[in-house]
């Protein structure tokens, strides 16, 4: 166990120092977040990644229907609402992925027989929608004060036909890509929580197996930033800090 785990830490620190010179695709679009912008939900956040924007509301720990009650942990529910029309199969599939990711970090056992509901409203979709949903859900959960084991972030990569990786692709880049991969990573162990892929790719092109063991995709450190920066205001949660430093 010792031998298997220790090299990862090395790889991680190496990738941290190497992150300076990045390829053209290895950067994220401008992202921003606002928390506590809705009055009715217990926690809310809106997350922007480039022109993609998602609004999230969290209710909980609240009353739960008897049919959905789980006796030893909280019932986690994720509802994803598209910009127009009714939710379809694609939304249901994404809901499932987001729900499983949240379940991995939320400490549901601290609030048994309650429900935690995350409602995500797509405001605009300009690529990397699932990643943006994951980020919005995380920030809303933080705002609601739901106990969590770690923070998580979502990131989408597009694999072009020439084998180059583009992080946080726009809708146009997504359309041209050979494969689209979305990952959720947690902030403590920096490991993969969820991955979903679409299209053709080989293991050699996208070393997902290495990300699963602590190395994160190059360029994503900024999303997991908060735990690396010591004593500095944390870039990932600007509004939280602002609010807390004001009072």
């Amino acid at each position, binding site marked *: *166990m*010792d031998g298997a*785990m*220790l090299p990862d*830490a090395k790889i991680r620190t190496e990738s941290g120092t190497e992150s300076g010179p990045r390829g053209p695709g290895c950067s994220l679009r401008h992202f921003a977040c606002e928390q*506590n912008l809705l009055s009715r939900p*217990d*926690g809310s956040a809106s997350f922007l990644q480039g022109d993609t924007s998602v609004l999230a509301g969290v*209710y*909980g*720990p*609240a*009353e*739960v229907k008897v049919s959905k009650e789980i006796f030893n942990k909280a019932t986690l529910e994720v509802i994803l609402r598209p910009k127009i029309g009714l939710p379809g199969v694609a939304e249901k599939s994404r809901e499932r992925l987001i729900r499983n990711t949240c379940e991995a*970090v939320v*400490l549901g056992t*601290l*609030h*048994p*027989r*309650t*429900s935690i509901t995350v409602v995500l409203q797509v405001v605009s979709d300009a690529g990397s929608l699932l990643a943006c949903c994951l980020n919005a859900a995380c920030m809303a959960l*933080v*705002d*609601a*004060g739901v*106990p*969590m*084991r*770690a*923070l998580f972030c979502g990131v989408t990569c597009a694999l072009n036909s020439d084998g180059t990786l583009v992080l946080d692709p726009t809708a146009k880049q997504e359309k041209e890509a050979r494969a689209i991969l979305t990952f959720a990573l*947690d*902030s*403590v*162990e920096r490991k993969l929580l969820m991955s979903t892929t679409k299209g053709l790719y080989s293991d050699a092109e996208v070393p997902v197996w290495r990300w699963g063991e*602590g190395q994160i995709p190059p360029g994503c450190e900024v999303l997991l930033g*908060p*735990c*690396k920066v*010591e*004593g500095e205001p*944390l870039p990932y*949660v600007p509004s*939280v*800090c602002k*609010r*807390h*430093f*004001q*009072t």
Partner: protein
Amino acid sequence: MAEAVGVVAESLAGDRARAARTVLDQVVLPGEELLLPEQEDAEGPGGAGERPLRLNAGSRSRGRVVCGPGLRRYGDRLLVTKCGRLRHKEPGGGSGGGVYWVDSQQKRYVPVKGDHVIGIVTAKSGDIFKVDVGGSEPASLSYLAFEGATKRNRPNVQVGDLIYGQFVVANKDMEPEMVCIDSCGRASGMGVIGQDGLLFKVTLGLIRKLLAPDCEILQELGKLYPLEIVFGMNGRIWVKAKTIQQTLILANILEACEHMTANQRKQIFSRLAES
């Protein structure tokens, strides 16, 4: 094996675990690990080599550390589970330890034993009332848990009444239970809240701020208008002044207090006192 695991945790945590003392009153995030003062000597920046020798190293008087809301024990460290500012309270003796907790801005209330809350009676069934306190399930309140209540002499409580009470049972596995008497059987301010007045909801952080011993807001309000006020730890405030207008002004001030500095507040109070 246990040692190997320890090493791995150390190398992974490496740059992350910070001493709890250095991040006091700073924002902490879920997943952060905090070192307690005792471990700082052993594992902290100083390192084991520079530790001064102590005569009574074996029998070091370790203060008892209590984990408050937002923190969990993880081995001999503290693990943060909520986002907010880290707070610390020294114990009476002042020899290390004490209470650590995270001050977060939440809106949803989770019942805590001993908290005074404002509830709304939602149902009467047999010998208990169901009271909505804003938690995940309604609290139960026995009709005998009022001052002077007996089996024959029932308290006059109707559905829709406001109740100011205290939790005697509140844990994650059981239905919360309220009473309106203290341990001596006295009401001591608790019971049904009168007919008029205004009930409104604020964040839990604001309630804690208003109830803090060094908070001047309440004294300043009292100088403005004569008022009756009840704070529930579940984020509910009931307020009543002489006229409806004054009541509304008070409610608006209290809601606005959350993000105001002392100076801004003084300006508003002086402006109101003039008008």
